[in-house]
């Protein structure tokens, strides 16, 4: 492989995890882990996962069958944590709106049901045409999971927008980062199911790594912008008077 490729590859593998450590640190200092315990656990988990896989890779097990099993095992953990984070985002958005929370819970169950059906269909469709291989199976399943996760995030964005709910900066950033990552995973696993040359596979690896890097930067950016308010922070007395004047008139 060309030197530039190795540089980009290792940068995209290492840098996001350095940022994840920074995110965990900021969350700890600002005590945000109380609001987002699962995301906090996710940042730590992803860092340890990286260390484990990186050590494996350095020991010459890169992409071999000995690398495959810890990769799949840690992927399972990441996937489960991502579902937990979506639940965490949901709880944070609707916590102050008990009535809406009930409606959102019911709607989300229906949406999840529909997404699971869509994901199962995508698995059946892909497994009918793809060769029987463990990694192919992992790609098909992970794409199905990505479809469900992106669908749930889209539902959260749409539902809260319908009711004019305001998202705190980091909640929005968190959801946005995972949504972008999910979309990239759908593309990555879909292309990965095609018959590619070994070299193309290496290049394709840069896609999820690059998008993961973008997502981590999004999380970090929104976390740092947490104090920056969107819109006015307070209405002036003059504004309030205009409001109440209109309301009195329409009574």
């Amino acid at each position, binding site marked *: 492989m060309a030197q530039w490729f190795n540089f980009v590859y290792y940068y995209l593998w290492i840098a996001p995890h350095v940022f994840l450590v920074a995110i965990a640190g900021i969350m700890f200092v600002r005590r945000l882990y109380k609001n987002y315990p699962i995301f906090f656990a996710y940042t730590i988990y992803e860092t340890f996962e990286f260390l484990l896989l990186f050590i494996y890779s350095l020991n010459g097990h890169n992409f071999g069958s000995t690398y495959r099993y810890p990769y799949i095992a840690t992927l399972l953990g990441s996937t489960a944590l991502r579902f937990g984070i979506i639940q965490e985002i949901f709880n944070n958005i609707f916590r102050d709106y008990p*009535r809406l929370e009930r409606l959102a819970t019911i709607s989300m169950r229906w949406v999840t049901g529909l997404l699971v059906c869509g994901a199962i269909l*995508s698995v059946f469709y892909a497994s009918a045409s793809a060769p029987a291989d463990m990694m192919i199976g992992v790609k098909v399943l992970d794409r199905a999971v990505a479809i469900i996760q992106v669908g749930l995030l889209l539902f959260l964005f749409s539902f809260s927008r*319908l009711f004019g709910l305001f998202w705190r900066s980091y909640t929005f950033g968190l959801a946005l980062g995972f949504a*972008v990552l999910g*979309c990239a995973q759908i593309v990555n696993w879909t292309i990965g199911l095609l018959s590619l040359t070994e070299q193309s596979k290496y290049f394709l690896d840069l896609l999820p790594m690059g998008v993961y890097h973008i997502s981590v930067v999004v999380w970090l950016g929104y976390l740092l912008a947490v104090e920056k308010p*969107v819109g006015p922070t*307070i209405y002036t007395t003059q504004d*309030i008077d205009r*409001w109440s004047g209109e309301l009195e008139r329409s009574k």
Partner: protein
Amino acid sequence: MTATFVFILLALILLAVFAVLAARRGKDQTDLDHALAQLRSLDIVAFRNLVDPLEEDFLRSRLPAHEFKKIKRERAEAALAYVRALSHASLQFARFGDVAQRSPDPAIAASGKQIANSAVNLRLQALNATVRLRLTAAFPALPARPLRPLLEQYDRAQYLMLKHSGLMRAESRAS
């Protein structure tokens, strides 16, 4: 190959949707003038008359069936315009409540929370009313259910907003 194309296209469309949401987030601010114009356009008395079941009974007793259906459809469509305005007003109330919730003053923050919750309930009622009125406009022969909860919710939101402005005035006088 078709499936590959569909999945990639779907992911790219979703990505574009999320990019638009992120870009629009910064612009999701309350335009006070627009909000006031929305409120100004609301003639609640006229709306109450439009959705009053007694008015409907009166019209049914006075008009021939086909004429009554036509009038009922027109009234439902007119009421929809008001519901739309109420629905927009609820979004402004929600934004207003959210801004107030972030106040360092606990009394104003508590009032803001009440307004935000009331706004969400108003929006729910407005969406519910929209469905009902669309059904009424499509099938005028069906008995219409009263929209009292929507009007009650609007009254509640309005009361909370006025209470909040009183609180703000008292705060500014005290400081």
